[in-house]
């Protein structure tokens, strides 16, 4: 897998980031170095090993499905200027 500017720009697009020309050029050698070090893990045999998505065993905590007091709409809208009446205002979906 070749790490080049094209791949960097593709990953940036998937990440919803627009890089400057300079950033994209800087990232190429840096990503080569970092991803090469990630690939060091290939040295270890893991066919029979189960992955750990948490460091300790996590049990599901279930609760009763009871309606509880929640946050007021006004409070929620306080942190944005993009709002209309009781709703958040966002960009066009289509």
């Amino acid at each position, binding site marked *: 897998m070749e790490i080049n500017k094209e791949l960097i720009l593709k990953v940036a697009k*998937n*990440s919803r980031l627009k*890089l400057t020309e300079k950033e994209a050029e800087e990232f190429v050698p840096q990503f080569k170095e970092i991803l090469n070090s990630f690939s060091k893990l290939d040295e*270890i045999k893991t066919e029979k090993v189960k992955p750990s998505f948490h460091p*300790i065993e996590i049990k599901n905590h279930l609760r009763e499905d009871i309606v509880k007091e929640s946050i007021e709409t006004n409070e929620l809208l306080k942190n944005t200027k993009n709002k209309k009446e009781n709703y958040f205002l966002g960009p066009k979906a289509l």
Partner: protein
Amino acid sequence: MKVQEFIKKVQDKDINIVEHIHKVLEECKKINKEYHYLNTISEELALKQAEQIKKNPKGKLAGLPISIKDSICVKDIESTAGSKILKGYKPYFHATAVEKAIKEGVIIIGKTAQDEFGFGGFSTNAGVDFEIPLNPFDKNRATGGSSGGAGGLTQKASFPNIGLGECTGGSIESPASFCGVFGLVPTYGRVSRYGLIDYGNSLDKLGPLGKNIYDCALMMEVISGYDEKDSTSLNKEVDSYTKYLKKDIKGLKIGVIKEAFSDGTDNSVKKNVWNGIKKLEKQGCTYKEISLPITMKYGISTYYTLATTEASTNLAKYCGMRYGASEEIKGNFDEYFTNVRSKNFGKEAKRRIMLGTFARMSGFRDAYYIKAAKVRSLIIEEYKKAFNNFDILITPTMPILPPTFKELEKLTPLQDYMMDIMTVSPNLAGLPHINIPVGFEKSLPIGMMIISDHLQEGKLIQVGKEFDN
């Protein structure tokens, strides 16, 4: 004055707490001008809390000033996690740990500086338009990170205080080491993550920084415990941590991880940490050098693969709509989100989001993300085996002395990540660990790291007290 003496005086009404907090805030402003430890000083809240304590001086932490890392939510106080993309965000709730501390009478003095979203080991990756905190012992050097503001303020403040920090792969113990204070990282799930602006969900932990071991023990008693609002919270009884301050360490078995003392570790660091181990031996502990080959060789690659993957999904929610930075709404969804994110994330945040996005892209997921999750299992297993024979494990906390900003500028991102070699692995395994200030070299502090088995925080406190001021 020590924290416990201060709290006693507040409870006995021997201190005019409102007057005291006025002085504390003045000192914070003065320190901040020079050292940049606080992103926000919560003056109004602190004075309000001081008035309440004056009327009712109760609680285990009555009247004690505490600082909160900027990634931990405090109701109505700007909480940015050091990122421009969260500029202006005032949470409408307290993090559970903050709520618990308030119930015990703390006074919140402000939000401490950090690497953006915790993305760094030196606090030099502050977000766009944020200041970088400076080491309390030498302003040309880094505080460590990412809880750098917490480390610096805890050390520099003349008044008794505790810092509440957060750690993903070394963010409490690194600044504790470089700033010469104690910093305790609890078992994963011991302290609720509710209200934490997350970096990596399977790695994040909240924990205290303090000048004395007592401060960490006391704070742990307050903030630990099960929380139904955090699905990964541990439903296990909370230990009485302060009791361990009186417990003898005689007979404790220590495993010294020999890979941590290799050529990559500074000689002065090795010397001081060995002095610490010898001190414990004199107190009746026994030690043996052991090897953790997978953990020490592959910890960095495993950690950075998993942490960036988790970060890339966590940071997908920042899109300039409901809170934080926003722009005039124009263009379609993708154009608008891309515009806000590109302008407001700093360079390291962009780098980590992209590394994580790559590691879970179709075709690469198994080779990177799943592979790293499997190696994580092997690392946990290696530690668990070691704990069959030893009570605690010891390494230096950081392999180097606090570096100068000039030295850091020369590092490539990978060389920078490599500095976390000691700290990432206990974090991958969710093991409790602590930085203990163990000596000085060239007037700069050196830290020793003690790791114990899951939920054995008591042993860290038991050992830590041997090095108390």
